[in-house]
């Protein structure tokens, strides 16, 4: 998939084409841009302009309820986020106003990072394991695949988030099951700050379906002969896995890793519902986007929310770049073609 898209970038179709007449040239371009107009308009009005605007807002104290008193506060919003790192509890903004730092920002950052770094690898490992299991000549694989995809199909919905709350409450289903096999003194998983995030990690790993389907498609691309040759040479299953499957699957692993990482940083619905619109007990499930929503829409501090959004964009951008950079070491693009 990634390969095809890079090919689209490099293929220089315009200059390769036959020399048209000047009228034909303009007409062709006019028609093409007509087809492109809705997208172009959407990009300019709903993406480019808002991005520039939100970058500007991030340096202001824009309050949705009193937009007329908006002032430029320089890096104030960013200090509000990261002030506690430097031991600040309040600071003077460029307007002369004393601003308090956000005591919960770093918490939301650590909750989100923990979630991403635990749930994404677990999800990918689980997805790969199930894909390997399914990548055999079994009858009914497409049915099994459908069943395993069901949690992913429904997982992002409010309905499932509500269900999750129910499952992991003190008197919920999970404790009912654990109680039935003899456990006692069980905690309320959702309401216990030590476990609340764990239940959301579990909810994420449960939705391994689309990674699994992509892995399965990747596994089908690996030629059978490689394994045959390897077993003739005396390689066992484990050696085959590490010297054939993993290297040949590495572009797919990279792809899944990037997609899942980007979406994990933006998780909202589950956290919002499980925490009842707040960050849960002791802010143990105060996800980044949830905190952003609360700042922007509960407290109307939209300048600050914009700054938070830009930091999120930077975090995702830098991490994605690091992953792509590191892929030089561990992703092989050779034999799979």
């Amino acid at each position, binding site marked *: 998939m990634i390969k095809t898209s890079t090919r689209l970038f490099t293929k220089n179709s315009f200059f390769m084409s036959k020399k048209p007449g000047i009228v034909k040239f303009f007409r062709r371009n006019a028609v093409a841009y007509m087809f492109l107009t*809705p997208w172009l308009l959407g990009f300019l*009005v709903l993406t480019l302009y808002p991005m520039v*605007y939100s970058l500007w807002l991030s340096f202001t104290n824009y309050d949705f309820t009193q937009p007329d008193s908006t002032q430029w506060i320089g890096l104030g919003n960013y200090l509000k986020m990261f002030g506690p790192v430097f031991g600040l509890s309040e600071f003077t903004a460029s307007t002369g106003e004393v601003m308090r730092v956000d005591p919960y920002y770093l918490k939301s950052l650590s909750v989100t990072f923990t979630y991403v770094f635990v749930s994404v690898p677990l999800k990918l490992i689980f997805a790969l394991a199930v894909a390997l299991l399914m990548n055999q000549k079994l009858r009914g694989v497409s049915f099994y695949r459908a069943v395993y995809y069901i949690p992913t199909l429904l997982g992002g919905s409010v309905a499932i988030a509500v269900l999750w709350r*129910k499952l992991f409450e003190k008197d919920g*289903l999970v404790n009912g099951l654990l109680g*039935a096999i003899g456990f006692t003194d069980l905690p309320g998983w959702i309401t216990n700050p030590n476990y609340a995030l764990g239940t959301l990690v579990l909810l994420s790993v449960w939705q391994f379906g689309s990674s699994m389907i992509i892995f399965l498609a990747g596994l089908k691309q690996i030629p059978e002969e490689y394994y045959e040759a390897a077993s003739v040479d005396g390689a066992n299953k484990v050696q085959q896995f590490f010297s054939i499957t993993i290297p040949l699957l590495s572009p797919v692993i990279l792809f899944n890793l990037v997609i899942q990482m980007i979406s994990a940083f933006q998780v909202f619905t589950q956290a919002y519902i499980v925490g009842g619109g707040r960050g*849960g007990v002791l802010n143990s499930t105060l996800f980044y986007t949830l905190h952003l929503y609360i700042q922007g829409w509960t407290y109307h501090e939209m300048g600050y929310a914009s700054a938070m*959004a830009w930091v999120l964009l930077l975090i995702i951008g830098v991490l*994605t770049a690091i992953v792509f950079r590191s892929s030089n070491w561990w992703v092989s693009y050779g034999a799979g073609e």
Partner: protein
Amino acid sequence: MGLGNNMKTSRVVRLTLTHLFIIALGLLMIYPIVWMIVSSFKPNNMIFSDPGLIPKAVTIENYVSGWKGYAGTSFGRFFANSFLMCAVAIVGNLLTCTMAAYAFGRLKFVGRNFWFAVMMITLMLPAHVTLVPRYILFNTFGWVGSYLPILVPKFLATDAFFVFLLVQFIRSLPKELDEAATIDGCGQFGVFSRIIVPLASPALVTMALFTFLWTWDDFFNQLLYLTRPETFTVARALRTFVGDAGAVSNWGGTLAMAALAMVPIFILFFALQKYFVQGITTTGIKG
């Protein structure tokens, strides 16, 4: 195991074990969902901590109480709202994403590579960077509280995932057909409507499906923009069952309506399964 004459039996045993393992794991995976559906038919006081899948008493009282909805508006209205919203969203995406994809996938124009690169970048962009200004913009238009902030972007091809999916698909179609149609006197519009759209219909079905799924489940935008109970969608209305700090008073009704909210997705998934798989493998769409 491993002895030549035992190979066949050991293979059968291994296959059977694999099947059993996959089935057991699969049951574990969907157990919470099955439990939810079953529990929605249990009397309210028996839902708690009854992990069993066979209800001791069956009732539809949860559906009756849940259907009453929120603030005098019933779930009938919420479902109608959701369906209508999804239908319009699908029309928007079908129209504009297909147009953009045709331009990127087939037409030659100045700046194509540049705009395509831009489109690919928007694919990776977290929605939050545009969130606040969009909200302010829609608010100045007086659109907050209506479906316009959710639906207008669909008519501006903002779902870059689908544009990408369709570009991939359109590029895989044989060019000879376009050329033949051109020789027969078709203009670019004719090629688009008579050749590309019909041939791309599997990808269009995939796009319609995922548009439905995502719009149905897109809680965040519904939370932001739908403010009056009579405009609530199913997802937005389900949230009203969960109080602040997460307390739920009517668990039976909540589970019943949550189960009901999944029905349209279930039906579409099992009816059109292969389009789901196609959509996921071509773009890595998350579920």
